[in-house]
């Protein structure tokens, strides 16, 4: 078993799903001969044919809507949005239809679709190619929002997303598409879609994160360890539904929480986690819940993008503040 990257794991899971289930189809802009602009769909069209792996015109509204129509007919469409910056034309279809059809029809029509999109900054991409707006989707009822952060989790969560009977927004942190390699066994095993993954065990502070920020957060945990501070690291992974049980249990143990994310701060998933702590975990908190996040400003173009993205220092400084607070 060779070691593979996160984007290769996405590809592996897609191939597996296409292989296992004739209802699975993959489509989007440039996913065919080009293999997707990040090569996530490389080789799939050659292997599974033009009817099951289709290049489409540039039209995100109809891409989303077609996925809904296909899913309503019992297919398992996996539609790619080329970048999260272009997903907004699909929002009407997601919030008004994908997330609602089961409920509207009392279970008669269901929408087992997956919408994939690479997201996040840090790869020196052009304007509009680096945003993180997962919170907008987390606010919508009736859907799931999933973010993998390792090759193994990308594989297992993607399979779970495709097999899930409800719509899943699957956001891929493109900065770490090729950052690490890991052995991934193509055994068709899915991972659960509603639990956090605990990446580090710790006792002094809980670091909660998701997406590419796992990278900085783990580094911060290493540095804290050097300083004798034991940080628990949680990868939320399924942003919606949110597994607060795991986070609350961790904070009950550590008494401190720092949430780290790339997205703009206001009404972010970080806000939701902190709000839950203020409601259900308050009495366990020794210190303010800190959020180290993207700012409430436009994601800068790439010359300044690393001034925007939370750094290891910003995480460390927040942790130290929570340690001083009590």
């Amino acid at each position, binding site marked *: 078993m060779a070691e593979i990257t996160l984007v290769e794991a996405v590809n592996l899971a897609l191939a597996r799903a296409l292989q296992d289930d004739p209802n699975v*189809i993959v489509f989007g802009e440039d996913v065919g001969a080009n293999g997707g602009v990040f090569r996530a769909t490389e080789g799939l069209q050659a292997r599974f044919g033009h*009817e*099951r792996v289709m290049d*489409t*015109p540039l*039209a995100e*509204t*109809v*891409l*989303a*809507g*077609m*996925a*809904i*129509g*296909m*899913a*309503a*007919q*019992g*297919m398992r*469409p996996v539609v790619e949005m080329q970048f999260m910056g272009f997903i907004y034309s699909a929002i*009407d*279809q997601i919030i*008004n*239809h994908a997330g609602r*059809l*089961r*409920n*509207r*029809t*009392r*279970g*008669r*029509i*269901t929408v087992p679709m997956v919408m994939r999109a690479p997201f996040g900054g840090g790869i020196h991409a052009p304007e509009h190619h680096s945003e993180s707006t997962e919170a907008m989707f987390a606010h919508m*009822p*009736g859907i*799931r929002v999933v973010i993998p952060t390792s090759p193994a989790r990308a594989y297992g969560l993607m399979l779970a997303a495709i097999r899930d*009977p*409800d719509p899943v927004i699957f956001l891929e942190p493109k900065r770490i598409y090729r950052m690490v390699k890991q052995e991934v066994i193509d055994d068709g095993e899915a991972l659960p879609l*509603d639990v956090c993954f605990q990446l580090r065990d710790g006792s002094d502070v809980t670091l909660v994160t998701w997406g590419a920020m796992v990278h900085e957060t783990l580094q911060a945990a290493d540095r804290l360890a050097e300083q004798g501070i034991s940080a628990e690291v949680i990868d939320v992974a399924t942003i919606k*539904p*949110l*597994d*607060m*049980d795991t986070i609350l249990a961790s904070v009950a143990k550590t008494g401190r929480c720092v949430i780290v994310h790339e997205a703009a701060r206001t009404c972010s998933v970080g806000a939701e986690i902190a709000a839950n702590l203020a409601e259900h975990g308050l009495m366990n908190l020794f210190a303010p819940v800190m959020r180290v996040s993207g700012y409430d400003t436009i994601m800068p173009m790439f010359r300044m993008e690393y001034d925007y993205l939370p750094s290891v220092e910003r995480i460390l400084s927040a942790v130290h503040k929570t340690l001083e607070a009590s």
Partner: protein
Amino acid sequence: MSDDPKHGIHHVASFDIHHSQVLNEHSELVAPLPYFTHEAGALLDLYKWMVRTRTFDAKAVALQRTGKMGTYSPCLGQEAIGVAIGHAMKREDVLLPTYREQGAQLMRSVAMHEIFLYWGGDERGMSYRDQRQDFPIAVPIASQVPHACGVAYAMKLRKEPRVAVVTLGDGATSKGDFYEGLNMAGIWNLPVVFVVTNNHWAISLGRDQQTAAQTLAQKGIAAGVPGEQVDGNDVIACRARIGKAIEKARSGGGPTLIEPLTYRMSDHTTADDATRYRSKEEVEHYKSLDPILRLRRYLEANKMWSEADEAQLKADASAEVDAAVEIYLGTERQAPESMFDHLYETLPRAYHWQREEVKNAGGKDHG
């Protein structure tokens, strides 16, 4: 611009739009009866379904007016189109309707009380006990068009001889969703028929303010999809042209856009007051084109229909509608916690407490 080789100008492409009619406003045949009428009783069927639809529609308005139902969008005057669609489709086809396709929906086994429930504010009005595949109406205008392309793609991929029929209004043609879907249908030669009901109004916006295009049928040209107009108050022509388009799609011939020309005789919905923006004269004019009257006169002139038949039909339709009203009014509210029961296949743990809270909430005091 015209062909002018001396000035380097060459003609590249030509397009034409046609309009068809079979039974004109005077109930005269202006064309031979189309093939589908060879089936015994076809015309009578169309007629009966139109009357049934109108009876249903009038009752729905009455329910709203008497406070027994919420806002409702009548299909008064447009029955020919819905009934033509319902008659032309096969059971295994899929309809993606607007809120004025009651005729088609009833013919496709949506129960009358389900439609009442829907406008009565109850989700079960979309559960369609006897119709498992058709979509419920899409309230965000034109957003059903992309769904139709997806449904049709699935049919095509599975090599099933089935067709998706999507209906929309003149107003819907201004929305990107419509055009994006039309374009997809063109590229993939999908088995989908677009019925664009031009009833001349989109709430208060008249057809001429909706687009500078001379016809709505020509919008197909933008996507390489053939388009045509049909007299939307002539149920025979509607049934013929829509049926032809459906069978063409079924046999791999690809999509068609059909623009039936009709008129919204009612207010936009029971919450609307059309006298604010259109003239009585206009409405009166269109009354004379009524699709039901038009066919009835033809049937009577050809001894296919009598006063007695009419009386019987009306009585039957009323009885049917009244029975549906009874079911509707007798339907208990859903349990409040049911708002969580169809959110996901299995309610995620994260929301269990919310379901419990709704379930246990006593009163609902809002002052």
